[in-house]
């Protein structure tokens, strides 16, 4: 089902661009939830028709990813953002306009990279490698360009989503337990980050990470 996987991956790219472009914290978090939901559906779309991988394994992965990426993690982040009281990213390091254009440029770069680098094995969806590269690069852009702790965590999540896309080339080769372990790690990571954001908000009265620069040489 090349078409469906490609459609999903295109939507993933669109949500990634939206996140890089949007300045509203709640919108970013909801968009990353949407991206997580799309990626949760990806294993099913890619591997279920082929029959190499047991369906139960795929369903378990998808449900787990959906619950974590589209449910728990965005809820945690929205809670943290609300308690910190921040609504909009006021002055990012890289302006939102430039971020949107840079983001489009990174997607174009990823599309080119994916054609230049020979894929190692059979790749079922043509947009798989480009979407993986692009999401990783867009995640980095968010991490570098934004000041608010919540949007930095969103950038980290996008980076992880990009890595997840690459991981789809290996579906079925890792036992379910280990894959669930990876998901669990992600969940706990965001949980810990959420708690850290809560503390930052309490300690500094805002979640602008520019304040976190007192330690230097």
């Amino acid at each position, binding site marked *: 089902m090349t078409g469906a996987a490609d459609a999903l991956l295109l939507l993933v*790219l669109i949500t990634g661009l939206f996140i890089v*472009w949007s300045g509203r914290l709640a919108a970013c978090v909801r968009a990353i939830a949407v991206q997580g939901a799309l990626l949760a559906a990806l294993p099913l779309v890619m591997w279920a028709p082929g029959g190499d991988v047991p369906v139960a394994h795929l369903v378990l992965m998808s449900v787990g990813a959906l619950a974590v990426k589209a449910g728990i993690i965005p809820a945690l982040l929205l809670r943290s953002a609300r308690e910190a009281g921040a609504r909009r990213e006021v002055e990012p390091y890289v302006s939102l306009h430039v971020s949107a254009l840079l983001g489009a440029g990174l997607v174009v770069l990823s599309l080119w990279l994916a054609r230049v680098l020979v894929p190692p094995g059979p790749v079922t969806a043509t947009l798989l490698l480009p979407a993986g590269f692009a999401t990783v690069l867009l995640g980095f852009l968010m991490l570098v360009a934004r000041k608010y702790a919540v949007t930095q965590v969103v950038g980290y999540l996008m980076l992880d989503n990009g890595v997840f896309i690459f991981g789809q080339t290996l579906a079925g080769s890792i036992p379910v337990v280990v894959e669930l372990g990876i998901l669990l790690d992600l969940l706990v990571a965001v949980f810990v980050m959420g708690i850290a954001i809560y503390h930052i908000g309490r300690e500094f009265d805002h979640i602008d990470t520019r304040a976190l620069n007192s330690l230097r040489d």
Partner: protein
Amino acid sequence: MNGPIPVLVHAVLLVMLPPLVLGVVGKTKSWVAGRIGPPIWQPYADVLKLLRKGVVMGAPTTWVFRAGPIVGLASVLVAGLIVPLAAGAGPLSFEGDVIAFAALLGLGRFFTMAAALDTGSSFEGMGASREAAFGAFTEPGLFLVLAIVCVPARSVSFAGAWTALPWDAWGPRHPVFLLAAAALFVVLLAENARIPVDDPATHLELTMVHEVMVLDHSGPDFAFIVYGGAVKLFVFAALLVHLLLPVPAAGGWVGAGLLVAGVLGVGVLVGAVESSVARLRLTRVPGFLIGVAALAAVGVAVLLARGQP
């Protein structure tokens, strides 16, 4: 396009239908607001009424002031003769007409702005500067959306590209075309001064973009402007319909029916969007338009990367 009948049909559609689209937009907004609203053919009556009135011109104006609405209407009508409507390409279609289309729109915009500046009033000048700025951000989006259709067809002509859209089964290119349709819809809203870029119903000059430029026009000049706006909306809506419905493939009367229904549907959609979304703050409009352009750029890149389908 051969034969007089298709040309005639094209011309009739182009000339007669646009005010109806405006009427549909207005009716939709009224219904959503819980009113009955003006009848669907109200814009026809408005234009005819304006044509019968006299013109009042400000003292400092020159020929540019009179030329503005005329060139505006002329350019948009010529553009309408280029784009495909009911069946096949428009009567004036030629290789490279996609660029000509954008250039015609630009010509109309330029003369509207020039006429506004010609009045010497600060309100119109403010409108002209806003229009220039927003136009600068809309143009790339428009070009990229047109590119999404033209690139796979390897043709820079409406005849070659837009009438040759692949309508086979749910193939792998469709997601990008839906993306193009969404981007084109936003460009439509921007070029036609609709919410969320501009509010056609506002009466506060400081918040206007397009309406304030034409504040001083009256009588037949204003009729041309209103009618020209309707034609522009119709032309964009026709392009959008071609992306979503298999109009050229249907051909003949079925195609024409599909087009009319589609264009009126776009009118309903515009009315719905205008009723439900708030107009963006002026400082946020460029960012919004840049986002749409970036999206369209990604669409083009994805198409290029996948090569020939």
